[in-house]
């Protein structure tokens, strides 16, 4: 379909321009911070001197992208319906600790053990997202405010749980509190063999390349299918594009709000699992935070589409990985945050511009093919 291709090309062009501009603006910031932009950008591509270090760098990059991708998907499901689930942060943390705890209480064959953990995580995330959804449909509470407030509750609740009811044994000399260790059967096999296929040394740090990557890919495909091909996805799209029209067409907006919120929360519940099942084997007080908020940026960047979100997650992970390399290059690593922020802002602007341009082009094309005059012509 040439119209769709046109739109896709425009989008890509917009994103490329935005990224180039972001690099230019960040260079100013880096210079202002007293470092050399060239060193900084070189550091992004510096995966280390030894082969082992390079493998580890690549693994860290992919491992970072996986939870970001899932977080982006979680946020996007809400965004598609104009629901702003800012609560992904709280949902995934609460889900992660509950799943880690439940998983540690029993031992079963690996597939069952892992499946139970995944189901628990999705259920906790979904239930926690149900709260703002119910508040919205019964009392009209704005979901942005409700989810922000619930984030605080979730974050503090997890801190309490990890110290109190869900705390496991603390090894001597360890400073972090943690949930009980998961049994061996809960650990997701890693994908280090891929490195060997390519003749590279397998990564050693952080549990190698997390096998949860496969689950994330399947999840992405499933979500694409649900959103693009099913009636449910059509209802989500219609509600997001035009609420009153959806209502008049018999789409129950309350049911849709609840369904979309719970779906978003369930996906959010999985964000913490790659780290727990791939590396840590428990939820501890060092657990990676902030993925839910980053997910908002990733979803925006990826235009709420699974493929776009994957690209955005890879981009963010690529930037995040350079933390250490930047420090070695004597550049403050906070430039990463600056670059990410600038990219998001510029891409949002670029999206808006390309979107309008694409719509205008579509109108003109339709007008031309019908042999009419162009819809808007400016008089002399």
């Amino acid at each position, binding site marked *: *379909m040439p*119209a*769709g291709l046109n739109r896709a090309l425009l989008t890509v062009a917009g994103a490329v321009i935005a990224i180039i501009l972001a690099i230019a603006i960040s260079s100013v910031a880096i210079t202002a911070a007293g470092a050399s932009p060239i060193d900084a950008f070189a550091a992004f591509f510096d995966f280390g001197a030894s082969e082992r270090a390079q493998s580890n760098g690549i693994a860290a990059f992919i491992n970072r992208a996986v939870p970001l991708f899932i977080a982006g998907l979680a946020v996007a499901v809400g965004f598609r319906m104009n629901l702003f689930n800012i609560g992904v942060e709280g949902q995934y943390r609460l889900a992660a600790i509950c799943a880690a705890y439940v998983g540690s209480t029993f031992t079963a064959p690996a597939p069952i053990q892992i499946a139970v953990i995944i189901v628990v995580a999705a259920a906790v995330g979904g239930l926690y997202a149900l709260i703002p959804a119910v508040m919205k449909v019964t009392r009209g509470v704005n979901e942005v405010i409700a989810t922000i407030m619930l984030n605080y509750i979730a974050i503090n609740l997890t801190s309490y749980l990890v110290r109190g009811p869900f705390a496991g044994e603390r090894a001597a000399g360890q400073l972090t509190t943690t949930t009980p260790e998961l049994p061996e059967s809960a650990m997701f096999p890693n994908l280090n063999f891929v490195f060997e296929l390519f003749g590279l040394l397998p990564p050693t740090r952080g549990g190698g390349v997390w096998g949860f990557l496969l689950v994330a890919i399947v999840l992405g495909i499933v979500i694409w299918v649900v959103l693009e*091909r*099913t*009636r*449910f*996805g*059509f*209802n989500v*799209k*219609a509600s997001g*594009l*035009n609420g*009153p*029209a*959806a*209502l*008049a*067409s*018999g*789409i*129950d907006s309350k049911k849709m709000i609840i369904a979309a919120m719970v779906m978003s929360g369930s996906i959010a519940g999985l964000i913490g699992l790659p780290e727990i099942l791939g590396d840590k084997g428990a939820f501890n007080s060092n657990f990676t935070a902030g993925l839910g908020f980053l997910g908002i940026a990733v979803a925006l960047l990826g235009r709420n589409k699974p493929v776009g979100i994957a690209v955005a997650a890879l981009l963010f992970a690529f930037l995040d990985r350079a933390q250490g390399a930047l420090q070695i290059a004597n550049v403050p690593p906070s430039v990463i945050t600056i670059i990410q922020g600038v990219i998001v802002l510029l891409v949002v602007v670029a999206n808006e511009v390309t979107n309008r341009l694409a*719509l205008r082009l*579509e*109108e003109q*094309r*339709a*007008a031309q*093919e*019908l042999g*009419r005059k162009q*819809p*808007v*012509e*400016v*008089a002399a």
Partner: protein
Amino acid sequence: MSADTLATAKFPAVELEGITKRFPGVVANHDIRITVQAGTVHAIVGENGAGKSTLMKILYGMQKPDEGSIRVDGKDVSFRTPSDAIEVGIGMVHQHFMLADNLTVLENIVLGAEPKKDVRLDTAGARKRINALAASHGLRVDPDKLVEDLGVGDRQRVEILKVLYRGARILILDEPTAVLVPQEVEELFQNLRELKAEGLTVIFISHKLDEVLDIADAITVIRRGTTVASLPRSEVTSARQLAELMVGSELPTPETRESTVTDRVAFKVEDLTMEADGYRPAPKGTPVRTYVEKLRAEGKRLLLDDVSFEIHEGEILGIAGVEGNGQSELIEAIMGIRPAHGTIRLGEHDISAWSTLKRRESGIGYIPEDRHRQGLLLEASLWENRVLGHQTRKPARSGIWVDRSASKRDTARIVKDYDVRTPSVDTLALALSGGNQQKLIVGREMSGAPKFLIAAHPTRGVDVGAQAAIWDHLRNARAAGLAVLLISADLDELIGLSDTIQVIYRGRLVAALDPSDITPERLGGYMTGAIAGTEET
């Protein structure tokens, strides 16, 4: 008149020439020509949707015309924002007041144009000016009262003062009487006459003809986005003459009156009632009628007041009424979008408790009054718009999936049968003209063999060709046994298509009329409540 006003009177206060404004898909204004003389009240009349509001937005700088020129006091002007319009002395009083309730009258008037003494608000200076303005124009208000304590008439005076305070010499009043009771209308007209005597120019937008005849010095009629007549008041002999200009006499005369009405009731509404302040279920065991009487006794405002009617297979029931008298609420109640008391029956079924989806599935079609708001996903393709409202039925549905190929095929059928001009079924809906969008909607709503169709303003904002086509489709469907509820502001459309006409006024059906012996003028009398309702048929 002072020498000053005489000097400016050499030129017309406002001249619009060849104003054309297109929106994607629709031409809202086309070659508008209006000359407003200084120191007069100039009325612009037209049906709802004729393009009055767009024109005023252009004149007030809220929208840019695609073509044409605007001259104010003989000078060419071009507005980018309302501030540009204010600059040359044009002020607008909006239909919906734009006042801050929790501020005083004085604060509201100066808001955005605050007089400053150093950095402080010069309250004393502002009060002096407001009082002077109020006294010279006979606009009594207490500057220190809170706006929330004011009545509607007072609020309107505040709006007018606000505009005058900014130095406006040309006032645009958009449907100013829509919210007023008759006594307040008389008071407003007194104020307008005083403004006129001061040499100010008033542009008065309305569709209430008797009021226009009362106040205007000159009248311009707009129909279908263009000016069809401009007359001085003295040349207008009757409201009827204006009404004819407004609705147009070249419209098709009532068609073959061959009745296709059967004796089988397809759709029936009984005692439909809706409160203005939110639905509360009637106590168990209380009949609706008793409950409604109780509501009335309590002095509750009712948006729908005991509405009952039935439509037979093959019958078109037209609902006439001035907009805002309960038409939208009636539609929403029938579609199940807004809860209401009373019973709704489709064929044998009592559908009062059904969801919107179930109502649609069981054979109710709906051509919405505002297609962009309720009828289309503008940023989705035509075939996706075909699925909308049919997402649970064949051909759009296939289990949990949307059947894309069947939907596309069926969209192609609609495109062909209903003459929707489009490059393909993958084109986005927003790329189509208004008429083609509407034909798509009509085609969609006629799909799946509906038993009952709500057609709300089915030809609003579409060109003449599409209008005729849509009428044909409605007539054919009626001949095939469809029951249609037609709601329209176009009186010729109502008279021409309907088998029966009911008039809705303040939420009540006040008259049942036979379209074969009714004139637009008499219908207008019923619609405005000027003629008390009598059952004629």
